[in-house]
């Protein structure tokens, strides 16, 4: 049964040391919840970026919340490199698990189907295979027996994202961003922040239902208005490019990052 709770109660369901899956910037990133994670001091996370991350990942890394980072990239996009990611790599302050986008999708899809691994095209020849000993190259058991890469299932403890709306039953509107559904299928628990709760049933028509993650997969929902800010939320608001650029500039130094973070947490607190 999906519970509708306050933001801090939602975030309290994430424990230090857990594997946390989060989506790419454009799909709906739970930034308000990210502020709450940092405020609550949750750390030692294994962060799985589906399949890459930006501001969210860099903030969590800068705040020291990440013990393992599994991603295909961390970048602030137009605003340039992710400064705390770069600094933490240099300092060796977390375990890096470099990936390639479709391999992260494939790992989640393996969990979705309840199988231990998924085969995946390409990759052979990449040094990623050297740094990811959990990825194997096997002879295909069917067909011509050619080499094929297999990646293990990714089963996050928690999937966390932000969406425009949920209905009272706990169904979430995800539109075409089906990787959000894949994350939820794969995860043990799914926590979602939304702009609003709507009274209509999102499963009522085939059209609206097609873009819905059913409540079955959703453990808890919290309302967080402008909950993706300063990132964009599709169909709702664009990214606050100036704010992201401000972050990119300030986070170049540890002190600048601390100053940014302090303002960011109190800003998010005010909105909440």
């Amino acid at each position: 049964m999906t519970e509708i709770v306050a933001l801090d109660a939602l975030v309290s369901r994430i424990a230090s040391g857990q594997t946390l899956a989060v989506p790419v910037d454009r799909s709906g990133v739970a930034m308000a919840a990210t502020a709450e994670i940092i405020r609550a001091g949750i750390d030692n996370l294994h962060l799985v970026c589906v399949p890459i991350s930006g501001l969210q990942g860099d903030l969590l890394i800068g705040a020291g919340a990440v013990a393992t980072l599994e991603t295909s990239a961390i970048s602030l996009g137009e605003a340039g490199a992710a400064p705390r990611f770069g600094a933490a790599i240099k300092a060796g302050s977390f375990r890096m698990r470099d990936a390639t986008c479709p391999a992260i999708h494939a790992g989640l899809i393996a969990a979705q189907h309840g199988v231990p691994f998924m085969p995946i095209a390409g990759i052979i020849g990449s040094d990623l295979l050297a740094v990811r000993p959990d990825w194997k190259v096997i002879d295909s058991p069917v067909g011509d027996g050619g080499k094929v890469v297999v990646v293990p299932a990714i089963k996050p403890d928690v999937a966390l994202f932000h969406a425009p709306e949920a209905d009272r039953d706990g169904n979430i509107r995800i539109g075409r961003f089906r990787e959000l559904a894949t994350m939820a299928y794969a995860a043990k628990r799914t926590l979602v922040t939304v702009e609003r709760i709507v009274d209509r049933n999102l499963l009522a028509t085939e059209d609206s239902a097609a873009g819905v993650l059913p409540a079955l997969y959703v453990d808890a929902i919290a309302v967080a208005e402008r909950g993706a800010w300063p990132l964009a939320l599709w169909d709702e608001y664009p990214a606050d490019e100036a704010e992201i650029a401000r972050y990119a500039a300030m986070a170049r130094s540890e002190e600048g990052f601390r100053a940014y973070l302090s303002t960011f947490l109190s800003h998010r607190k005010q909105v909440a």
Partner: protein
Amino acid sequence: MSSDRERRETLIATIADLLDGVRHVAVGASSPIPAAGAMLLRAREMRDGKPPVRISILGSQKHNFFTNGGIELFDCAAQGRVDAFFLGGGQIDGHGNINLVGTGDYPRTDVRWPGSFGSAYLYHLIPRVILFREEHSPRVFVPKVDFISAKATTPEVARRGGPYALLTNMALFDFDRDAGRFSLRSVHAPFTPADIRENTGFAYEEPDVIAETPRPDAATLALLRGQILDELAETYPGFARSMKQAA
């Protein structure tokens, strides 16, 4: 300023030529020049009554006709439904291998770049991967990349994808998949083959006669400066504006 505009126009027109014949080209986010090249191709094909060209711009809601989430581009490529794509690289070596991870010893690299994105996968699957890197310098074009994000050729496995050409601010190279190396095709004015040699850290084939990369013709320029900049403005307003201002 006008020369920077001309440089960009040449790159865009060259990309459109490299894409000749493709039906579906995918463009990464924040890649205005490749996107402009694809749009130029599409406009030209439409003008000439040829079959339509599809352009997918990753991360764009407007130029997104996918409905199955982030994996669909990758699936689509694996199904053989994507003909061309662009990749860059912090380092690109003479064998066509690209490095999007960093320099020095992994994981505590001296310089760390964002990461491999989908390169390790797409390089195997998309027939015409155009390597596009504006900076043409020995620190980018190295004999051997420090980390292979994506390998250009893998004789040990069948693949349909791989590098097709390398386009920089200074020159255009073809890639020979059997030989696993680049061959200089043309040099953008005012550069000379000697400039290319000086700024390329890897060995490549150099024919006896090296052409100058052609400037776009008048019809192409008209299309580019009009319709294409208008189309581009929807997705890359800043880039389109700077191109218009340079006029």
